């Protein structure tokens, strides 16, 4: 298998590409462990709705956005309601719009075709890992801050883990029960909290986060469905826009 190499450094691109890819693989390992229990549960739920393991892996491989897949399985009827499923998927994944925008400055150095492939594999965790890594490298003056091999190292590992674990969940299906009960569901907040710590630059800069958290929690409690994600994200960004007018001190 060959992987895209950064177009900016042609001379020693291949060794850099390989080490960067391996660095991405390594970086994704804790997250892969976090994926497995969720993948098993999603696969089991899908099989209860009549999905064959192949259909499960098509769903998780083509869509590759866990939250929307859990929602879709929950809403699944026979025959499926196509527009409802597409609409709910669009709503739940609307946060990707903001995520893609934050990656754009890093992706802009690459050929468009490669950026489009990279975006096809962008899930919450790939985005969060690569963005925090890119910002960390930027802070330390490392160039380029984001390489495609690193990105694909993270993205492909997580993508394959998701496909395989959901298909396996579909296979063993009902024998499984809800293993997230035993605390595995805490893996995701744990990951996200560590990433937030990495993005922390002080109380002042974190005020929009507080707005997001409070709004998202309130909307989650008051409004059914997945509206809390876009509501929280947008209100935080609006707050950041409002506060960014202050003179920088």
């Amino acid at each position, binding site marked *: 298998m060959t992987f895209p190499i950064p177009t900016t450094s042609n001379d020693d691109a291949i060794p850099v590409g390989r080490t960067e890819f391996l660095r991405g693989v390594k970086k994704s390992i*804790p997250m892969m462990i976090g994926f497995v229990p969720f993948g098993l549960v999603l696969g089991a739920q899908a099989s209860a709705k009549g*999905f*064959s393991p*192949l*259909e499960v892996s*098509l769903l998780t491989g*083509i*869509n590759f956005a866990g939250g929307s897949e859990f929602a*879709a399985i929950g809403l699944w009827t026979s*025959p*499926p309601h*196509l527009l409802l*499923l*597409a609409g709910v998927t*669009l709503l739940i*994944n*609307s*946060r990707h*719009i*903001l*995520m*893609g*925008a934050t*990656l*754009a*400055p890093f*992706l802009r150095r690459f050929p468009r075709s490669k*950026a489009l492939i990279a*975006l096809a594999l*962008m899930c919450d965790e790939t985005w*969060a890992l690569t963005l925090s890594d890119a910002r960390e490298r930027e802070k330390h003056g490392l160039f380029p801050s984001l390489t495609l091999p690193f990105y694909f190292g993270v993205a492909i590992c997580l993508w394959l883990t998701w496909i395989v674990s959901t298909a396996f969940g579909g296979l063993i299906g009902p024998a499984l029960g809800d293993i997230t*009960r035993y*605390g595995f*569901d*805490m*893996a995701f*907040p*744990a*990951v*996200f*909290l*560590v990433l*937030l710590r990495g993005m922390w630059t002080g109380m002042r*800069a974190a005020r929009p*986060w507080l*707005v997001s*958290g409070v709004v*998202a*929690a309130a909307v989650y409690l008051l409004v059914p469905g997945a509206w*809390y*994600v*876009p509501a*929280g*994200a947008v209100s*935080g*960004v609006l707050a950041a*826009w409002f506060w*960014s*007018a202050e003179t*920088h001190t």
Partner: protein
Amino acid sequence: MSVHLTTFLAILLMGVATYSTRLIGYALLGNRELSPRAKRVMDAAPGCVLISVIAPHFVSGGPADLVALIVTAVAATRLSLLPTILIGVASAGLLRLL
């Protein structure tokens, strides 16, 4: 193993919906240079998305979940990724047994 046509169609539509959300932000910002103010906003945006996604965890569980979440948050301020995950999973699993 079989793949039903309507199932495949639904999956394809979901995939199109998801891929479009992945493209829009990149396409809108594309090659534009950001103003300093917009850059400051974009610096805050990732944290806003992350915290919005996990916000329900803070308000949906019982006291055991909340304590486990606080333990995890404290761990996150001083430890790296893997130990934090282990502490989070272990504390949630143990506290729910109590």
